[in-house]
C-alpha cells in the first residue's frame, strides 16, 4: 500500500523503476533542497497492482497477441479496447481510497482546494533509443478528486495508444514488465517569479548569482515583455552586490476557470518596489546555488514564489538547465598576469601598492 503513493517531499529514494523518470527527478530535486511544486507520484507499483489485481494484465496480453502489426485498423481497435478497459475497470479492493487519500492529503496543505496537473511518468522515458517523449499525456488545471482520478487513468491508458503499441513492436520493446507512474502536482500560482543564473552573464564572473524577478508567473520575464527587478548577488556570501528595481508594469496571473494565463496591469504601488523580500531573494539565490552544486555546472533556473504555500516554504523550482554561454569558457576570470616574480610574494604586494 505504502508503495502505491510517494510524495515528492517524502525523502523516498528516487527509484526510476518505482517512480518513472519525471517523478524520480521531482523527488530527488526536492530532497536536494530544490523544492518543486508539491505533489505525489502514483507509482508503477500502483499500476502493476491495478492491472494484475483486476485481471487486466492477462487481457491485455491476450489482446496484444492478436495484433497484426501491419493492419493499422486492427492496432487502433485493440488500442481502444485496452484503453477503455484501463479507464473503466474497478481497482482491486485493497487499492480503494488510496488515490483519494493522497489527493486529500495534498489539498489539506492549502487553505482552499487548488488545481493540480496530472502527468505521466514513464520508466523508459530516459532511455535514449526508446524515447517515449510526447507519447504520454499531461493534463492541467484539474480540480476535484473525480477529475484527478479520471486523468490518472488516462495517463495509464496512454501506455496503449496506437502509436505506443506500434513503436514498441517496431523497436522490439517487450510488453512484459511495461508499467507507468503518474505525477499529481500542484499547479504553480506564482505571486512573483523569474529566472536566476549562477554567474554574472555580463562578464561570466562565476562568483555571482543574478536574479531577475517580476510579479506573476515568469513568462513575461523570460520573453522580455517586462523590465524585471535585476539583482546581482555574491555567490559565497549571498549578499546583494548591485540591484536595479524594474518598472514592472504588467503581470501574468493564472485564471483557473479558463485554465489560461491572464495579463493584467500592475498597480502603481507594486510596480516600483522589489517583488522579493530580502529573505525571498536570499532563498532564490541559495536555491540556484544548490542547483549548480547538484548538477556540477552553472545553471539557469526558473523559479516561482507560490501564493498558496506558507511563507518560507513557498519558493519553487520550475526548471534548471545548464547555462551554456559562459560555461564553455574557463572557470574564472584570470587576473592580470604578474610580470615580476622575484622572491617571495613581495612583487605582487609591491605591484598592488605601486599600481603595477
Amino acid at each position, binding site marked *: 500500500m505504502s508503495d502505491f503513493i510517494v510524495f515528492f517531499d517524502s525523502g523516498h529514494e528516487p527509484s526510476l523503476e518505482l517512480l518513472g523518470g519525471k517523478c524520480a527527478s521531482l523527488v530527488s530535486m526536492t530532497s536536494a533542497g530544490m523544492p518543486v511544486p508539491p505533489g505525489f507520484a502514483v507509482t508503477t507499483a500502483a499500476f502493476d497492482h491495478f492491472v494484475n489485481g483486476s485481471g487486466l494484465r492477462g487481457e491485455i496480453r491476450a489482446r496484444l497477441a492478436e495484433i497484426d502489426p501491419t493492419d493499422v485498423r486492427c492496432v487502433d481497435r485493440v488500442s481502444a479496447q485496452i484503453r477503455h478497459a484501463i479507464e473503466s475497470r474497478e481497482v482491486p479492493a485493497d487499492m480503494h481510497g488510496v488515490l483519494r487519500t493522497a489527493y486529500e492529503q495534498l489539498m489539506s496543505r492549502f487553505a482552499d482546494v487548488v488545481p493540480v496537473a496530472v502527468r505521466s511518468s514513464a520508466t523508459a522515458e530516459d532511455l535514449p533509443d526508446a524515447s517515449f517523449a510526447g507519447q504520454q499525456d499531461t493534463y492541467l488545471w484539474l480540480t476535484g478528486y473525480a477529475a484527478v482520478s479520471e486523468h490518472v487513468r488516462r495517463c495509464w491508458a496512454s501506455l496503449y495508444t496506437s502509436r505506443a503499441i506500434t513503436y514498441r513492436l517496431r523497436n522490439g520493446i517487450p510488453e512484459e514488465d511495461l508499467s507507468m507512474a503518474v505525477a499529481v502536482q500542484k499547479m504553480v500560482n506564482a505571486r512573483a517569479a523569474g529566472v536566476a543564473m549562477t554567474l554574472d552573464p555580463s562578464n561570466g564572473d562565476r562568483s555571482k548569482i543574478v536574479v531577475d524577478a517580476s510579479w506573476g508567473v515568469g513568462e513575461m520575464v523570460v520573453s522580455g515583455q517586462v523590465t524585471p527587478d535585476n539583482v546581482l548577488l555574491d555567490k559565497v*556570501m549571498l*549578499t546583494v552586490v548591485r540591484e536595479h528595481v524594474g518598472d514592472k508594469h504588467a503581470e501574468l496571473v493564472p485564471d483557473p476557470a479558463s485554465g489560461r494565463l491572464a495579463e493584467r496591469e500592475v498597480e502603481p504601488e507594486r510596480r516600483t518596489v522589489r517583488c522579493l523580500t530580502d529573505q525571498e531573494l536570499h532563498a532564490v539565490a541559495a536555491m540556484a546555488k544548490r542547483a549548480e552544486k547538484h548538477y556540477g555546472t552553472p545553471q539557469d533556473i526558473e523559479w516561482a514564489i507560490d501564493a498558496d504555500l506558507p511563507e518560507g516554504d513557498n519558493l519553487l523550482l520550475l526548471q534548471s538547465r545548464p547555462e551554456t554561454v559562459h560555461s564553455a569558457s574557463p572557470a*574564472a576570470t584570470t*587576473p592580470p*598576469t604578474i610580470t615580476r616574480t622575484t622572491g617571495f610574494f613581495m612583487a605582487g*604586494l609591491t605591484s598592488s*601598492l605601486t599600481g603595477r
Partner: protein
Amino acid sequence: MTIEQTMKSFPKPSQIEVPEGAEGWEELYPYNLVFGNAPGADEKFWFCDSQHWPTVFKPFETIGGEFAVKCLGQYNTRHLLIPPANGIEFKIHLGYLYMSPVAVPQEEIPARVPEFERRAGHYFQNWDSLLEAWHSKVRATIDEMEELHFTALPDAVPFDDIVSGKAMDGSQTLMENYDRLIALLYRNWQYHFEFLNLGYLAYLDFFGFCKEVFPGIPDQAVAKMVQGVDMELFRPDDELKRLAVKAVQLGLQSAFENPDDVEGTLRAVRSAGGEEWVAAYEAAQDPWFNFTVGNGFYGHDKYWMEHQEIPLGYIKDYIRRLDEGQEIMRPIEQLTAEKERIVEEYRDLLQGEAREQFDAKRGLAATAYPYVENHNFYIEHWTMGVFWRKVRELARVFVGAGFWADPADMLYLNRNEVRDAIFDLVTGWAVGAESTGPHYWPAEIERRRRIIDALSARRPQPALNTPPAEITEPFTMMLYGITTEQVQQWLAGDESGDDTTITGMAASPGVVEGIARVISSADQLGEVQEGEILVATITAPSWGPIFGRIKATVTDIGGMMSHAAIVCREYGLPAVTGTGSASTTIRTGQRIRVDGNAGRVDILES
C-alpha cells in the same frame, strides 16, 4: 560628477569660529600641533581621526595621539620604505586630531621598491619568530613600567642614607621615574607599529586581489577570510564567560546580587564556599583585566583592574543568561567552519595561477592580519592601562602636596608641564618653603577646564579644506575608511534632507529591526536592554559582554576593521559603521531597521 560637486570643500581651519569660552585653546596643546604655526594649514586636505579620538584632548592626553601617529609614520617612512606612502601628518584643531597622509613623490617610488621588498620580505619570512620577540619586548616594557612607583617624599632623609653617604634626597626617583614612564610608553608605541603596517599591507594586497577577481565581492567577505576566530582581543570577555559558567556550576549565583560592591561580592562568594572561584577570578586578572571600557587614549578610561564592578557586573549578566538557558560562549567551531566555507568557495572559483595567487595572498594576510586585532590588547589596553595607573599614582602625590584637588586634574597639564611641576614640588619640599603649584594650578586648571568644556560642546568637522578629486592612499582608505565616496557623502550630508535614512559601511551582514538605544559613553552601558539595537559614536572591544544582549550595532565612526565591525561579525550581529551621524540623528526608543548588507539604517517610527 558635476562641477558643483568637485568645487565643494570643507571649511578651512582659519575660517572655523572658536566656540564661545574656548578662546586661547591653542596654548593648551604643543606648538607644533597647532595650525598656523607652520605652513599648509589652509591648503592640505585634513580629515578628523574621531575613530581613535572621538572626544576633545585634555592637554596631557595628547601623548597618545602624538606617540601613536608619529610611530605609525616612522614604519612607513624610515623602517619599511613603503613605496607610495610616507606617514600621516597630524595636527590638533579645536581639541580634535586631524590627519593628512603624506604621499611619496611619484619619481621617488621606484627607488624605494627594492629596499621595501628586502625589509618587508624579511618580516614576512620571519613573522613567527619576530612576533615572538615582539611579545617579549612589549612584556618587558610593561614589567618595567609596573616597577615604577611614585610616592610622597619623607619629612627627612632616612638615617640609613646618612650612614651610607647616599647624599641624595629621593626627589631624583620621582623625576627619573616620570621620565622613565614617558620613555617606556614611547618604546611600546614604537613596538605597536612594528607589525601593524605590515598586517594592513598584507590585508590590503589580498583585498585588492579579491576585488579584481571577484568584482564587487563584499568587503566583509574579504575580512572574514583573514580574520582570526579565536582572537586575544576576545580573551578578557571569554574569561568572564568562563567565570560565569564556573559560578553557576558552584551554585554561587546569589553572591552576585550587587556587583557594584566589589568587596561585598567577593566576600559573599567566599562565604558561599567559592574559594575556588575567587582563585580563578584572581588568576584571570593578570593580564586580562588590563582592559578598558574606553580605547586607552583617555585618562578617564576605566580599566577592569581598578573598576572590578564592571567585570563583576558582566559576570552577573552572564550568570543570568546561563540561568535562562542561553548559550553564552562564542560559537567558535561554527565560526571556524563558516570561515573555512567562505575561503573554500571563493578558492574553488579560481583555477591555475589565479588560485595559486589567491592561496599565497590569503596565506600572507591570514598570517599577518591577526596581529592587527591582537596587538590592541597589549598596547591600548595593557600598556596604556599600566601607564594611566602610574600617572594617577603620581597625580596623587601632587594632591597630597596640595597642587590640585583631584588626581584627574593633572590631565589639564601637558606632559612637560608635569615635569616642571615635579621640580616645583621637590624644590618647595627641599627648600622648606611653599611650592608655587598650589597657588598657581588650581585656578589655571579651572580656566583650562572651561576651555576644554567649551570645545567639547561641539562635534568636530569631519574634514578640512578641499579634498583631492580622488582618495587613493591605501592606508587612509583601509585604516580610516576615508574613501572618495565617504568624503562626497560627508559633503552632501547637510543637504540630503532625508532624516529617516542613514548610510554607512556594511560592516557585518544581516538585517534586523528593533528599538534603538543611543549611548554616548561607556558609563551608560548598563542602560542597554536585551534585544535593543546599540547606537553609539564608537564602541570599544571591552563592550563585548553587551554584544551578547543586543540585536545590531550602529556607529558614527569606524570602518570595516573597526572594533564594532570585528566584534559584530564575531557575534553574528548586523552592523553599520561610519555613519557619521547615527548617534545624533537616532533617539533612544525609536524603532529602526539596520541593514548590515547594504550599510543602511532606517528610522521606522519615533
